[in-house]
Each structure stands twice: as C-alpha cells, then as structure tokens.
C-alpha cells in the first residue's frame, strides 16, 4: 500500500483514530510531502486529491474540537469550530461530491450534525462589517490583482494543492452592523461587564448543555424535534400578571396567556441516541427564551463587544 492509500484508509477509519496532536501532525506531514511530490512532477490532479484529503482531515478535526469544547462548556469556542467545519465542508463541496455512496468519510453525517448543533445554539446576535477593498492579493502567487492585470489564478480553484482566495491588502472599514444573519458566524456580540469591562457570555446554552451531557461521542447520531405543548396555569402559580408571560412572547402575562386555557410552550424533544444512558428515555426540554431584542441592543451598543478570535477567516472566498 502506498502512502496516499494509507492516509485514505486512516481518514476512513475516523472512529478508531486517536485524533490527538501526534496523529494529526503525522498525517499532516505525509500530506505535505505528498503535495510537494505531486507539485514537483506537475501532477495537479493528484495534488488536488491531496488537498481533498487535507480538507477532510480538517473537517473532522474541527468537528471533534467543537464537540470537545461543548463537552467542557466552552460553548462559544465550540460554535467557532462548528463554523470552521461548515466552511471547509463548503470548500470541499465546490470540487468533490460530499454525498458519496456509503459516506466513507462520514462527511454527509458531519454536515447534518453541524447544522443540528447550530440550530440548538442560542439565538446569537452578530456584528458584521462592510469593507471597501482597493487592492487584494492572490493567495497562490501573492501578486496584487487589478481588473486589467490579473495573475490568472481563478478564485476558489485548486492550484498546487491549495485553494485560491483573495487577501485584501488596501481596504477600509465602511460600516459595522448588527445582524442575526452574518456571513461569518464567529462574530458574536457579547455583553461587557460594566465594572470589570470583561466580556460576559450571558447567552442561554441550556439546550446544548443538556444534549452534550448525554451524548457519548461526536459520531453518534441524534436528532431533535420542536413541538408546542399546552401547559396548565397551575404550573405557573408563582407568576403574577405583570411578569413576562412564560410563553416567551415578551408581553405581560396578564396581556398574553393568562385568560387562555393554558400556556402554549415551545419544547424540544431530543432523541435517537445510540447508546443513550437510558435508551428508553426521550427527553423533553423547554425551549429557550428569545435572545435580546435587536433594537434594544442598538440602543446599548457600547455595552457590547466582540471577540475576534478567528482572524484567519479574513479573506475573500
């Protein structure tokens, strides 16, 4: 078996791999050597295959890192790794079929699970910027690209086993906006503690926290379903009319559900685990309250800050 096939087999055996740094470095080293070898002999197709394997390795690494972070309650970091896995799945999908029969690299599975994890994260609020780019460089040859002087490397194509992107050189920030639908999902807005001025993550991670506690491995399948259930008023005796309604509408209890037959509450069912701690259990969990109203945040913009931890994502792709 040659080195290339050995790496393919190793990547297919993702469930039994150690996924530690030593193993990661070992695979990376082999892939780097293979890429250099193919580039040297001018075999661009093979070099592209090496890029594919490298990207598959990255997808698994980011997905596992996301899982580890969630397990250790570093939920925001987990969110960032989920985004990285999602981005690399997208890049791979530009050139190769992710939905291969039999899903040998488990990519369809990861794609599905990343989306589900993201769905049960809190309703984050993000900031996004608009930038005016005057000049940008090609990531392959490092040349400045202008409309009439183009290096010839096409955006998103694979050259020498690397994906071509544009790196902004001369640019200015035009505007900053608050949004629920950002291009980069890592740009989450957090509150700043008024006294210590440190970032406070006060988003409600109860769903993900609950799920990750009972999920044994990132490669175990799980699913969820959103439902609504009528809860009797007797369950909310401690609420008075001026409190916010338990249905999370944001209105006062007396102006919302207090006169109705009950309170229609959103819930989530988690299920489909193999194995579960208690396989017969299908858990039911109330959905989170809505995250802060976006207009309220605009009024208190200065108390929010952001964590720019993924600077490597700053490119045009």
């Amino acid at each position, binding site marked *: 078996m040659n080195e290339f096939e050995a790496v393919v087999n190793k990547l297919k055996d993702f469930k039994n791999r150690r996924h530690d740094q030593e193993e990661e470095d070992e695979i990376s080293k082999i892939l780097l050597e293979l890429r250099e070898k193919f580039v040297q002999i001018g075999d661009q197709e093979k070099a592209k295959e090496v890029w594919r394997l490298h990207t598959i390795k990255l997808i698994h690494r980011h997905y596992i890192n996301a899982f580890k972070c969630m397990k250790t309650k570093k939920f925001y970091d987990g969110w960032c790794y989920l985004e990285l896995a999602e981005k690399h799945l*997208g890049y791979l999908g*530009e*050139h190769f079929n992710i939905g291969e029969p039999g899903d040998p690299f488990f990519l369809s599975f990861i794609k599905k699970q990343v989306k589900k994890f993201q769905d049960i994260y809190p309703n984050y609020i993000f900031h*996004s*910027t*608009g*930038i*005016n*780019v*005057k000049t*940008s460089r090609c990531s392959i040859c490092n040349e400045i*690209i*202008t*409309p*009439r*002087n*183009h290096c010839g490397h*096409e*955006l*998103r194509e694979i050259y020498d086993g690397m994906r071509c992107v*544009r790196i*902004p050189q001369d640019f200015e920030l*035009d505007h900053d*906006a608050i*949004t629920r*639908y*950002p*291009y*980069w999902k890592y*740009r989450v807005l957090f509150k700043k503690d008024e006294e210590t001025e440190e970032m406070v993550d006060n988003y409600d991670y109860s769903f993900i926290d609950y799920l990750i506690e009972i999920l044994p491995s990132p490669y175990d399948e799980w699913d969820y379903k959103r439902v609504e259930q009528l809860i009797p008023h007797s369950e909310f005796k401690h609420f008075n009319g001026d409190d916010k309604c338990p249905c999370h509408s944001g209105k006062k209890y007396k102006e919302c559900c207090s006169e109705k037959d009950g309170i229609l509450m959103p819930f989530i069912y988690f299920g489909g685990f193999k194995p579960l701690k208690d396989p017969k259990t299908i858990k039911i969990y109330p959905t989170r309250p809505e995250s802060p109203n976006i207009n309220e945040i605009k009024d208190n913009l200065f108390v929010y800050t952001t964590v720019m931890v993924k600077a490597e994502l700053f490119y*045009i792709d």
Partner: protein
Amino acid sequence: MIKMCAQHDFEIIVYNSEISTDLILNQKFVPDNLKDSIKASNVLFLPKIINDKPFYEVETLDLFRYFRNAVEEGFKPELCVSDDDFQFRREEAAEEFFVLGWFLIKYAVIKPFIKKLKEYLLKKLKRNIPIELKITAKKTKMTKTVDLEYKGLPDHIDRILDKLEDFWNE
C-alpha cells in the same frame, strides 16, 4: 412599466430605463483615457454609486477577466473606472442573493452574454446559490433602454432572453 415573473426559483423584473452610454461617459469618475474603450464596449460593467463613489461587486475582478478572455467570441468588456480607482465593497451580512453586478449590454451580444454568464456561474462560482444581477439593454436606436433584474438560481438565467423578447415585441 414594471413586469414581474415570480416563480419558485427565480424572479425577473423588467422596466424602462434611462441609462445610456452617453450618460455614463459624463460621470466624474470615468477617466478620459477610458472613454473610447467604453464607447466601443459591448459588455459594460456598471458600478454602484455610493456617496458619489463608484463601487463594484466582489466577483467583478474574476468575472471581468472571464469576459476579457473571451474576446474571440465577440465580447468587448469594459469597466467604468481605471485600475487605480477600482474598488469593490464586501458586505459581510449574509445576503439573500449573491450580487453579481449591473451590466450594460449591446443587443448583438445579449444571447452570447447570457450563455457565457451561465457558464461562469455553473463552472466558476461553484455554489448553487441564488444570484442577483441587473442587465440594461437596448434593441435599436429608436427603442428605449430596458432594465432587467434577475434574482434566482443560475440555472434559469436564460429566461432573461424570453422576457426581453416579450418586452420588445409589445
């Protein structure tokens, strides 16, 4: 007049337009040394004007090159700014559509332009995402200019041609 064709996966808006090459040549940002080339062009990439400054879209660099490489097919693409003044705006909020830009197209190359654009979208964009573009075209000197805005998946982009024919046959 505004016509709309809304289906599940695309939408085309058609309306009369006042844009012309002469109007563009009078813009402050158009340099003198480009004016002849702009007059001669049959695929003119129009900028978006924000605070009196011209801005292009993220994809313009690569799309412009794609058409420049197809001069043998009869395309004479041009931009309205020099390389030194060229800049594009990158919006980071997730837009519903991927905006390709605004193009002033001469009648003779409308069909090949749409064909070439579709080829680019399917081969080079590498993403099956809804796109948005605006095309301004003129059939004869006597007819008014018409604007078409297309929003939808790349697969149906040639439906622009049907809409144009309908418009001109009225």
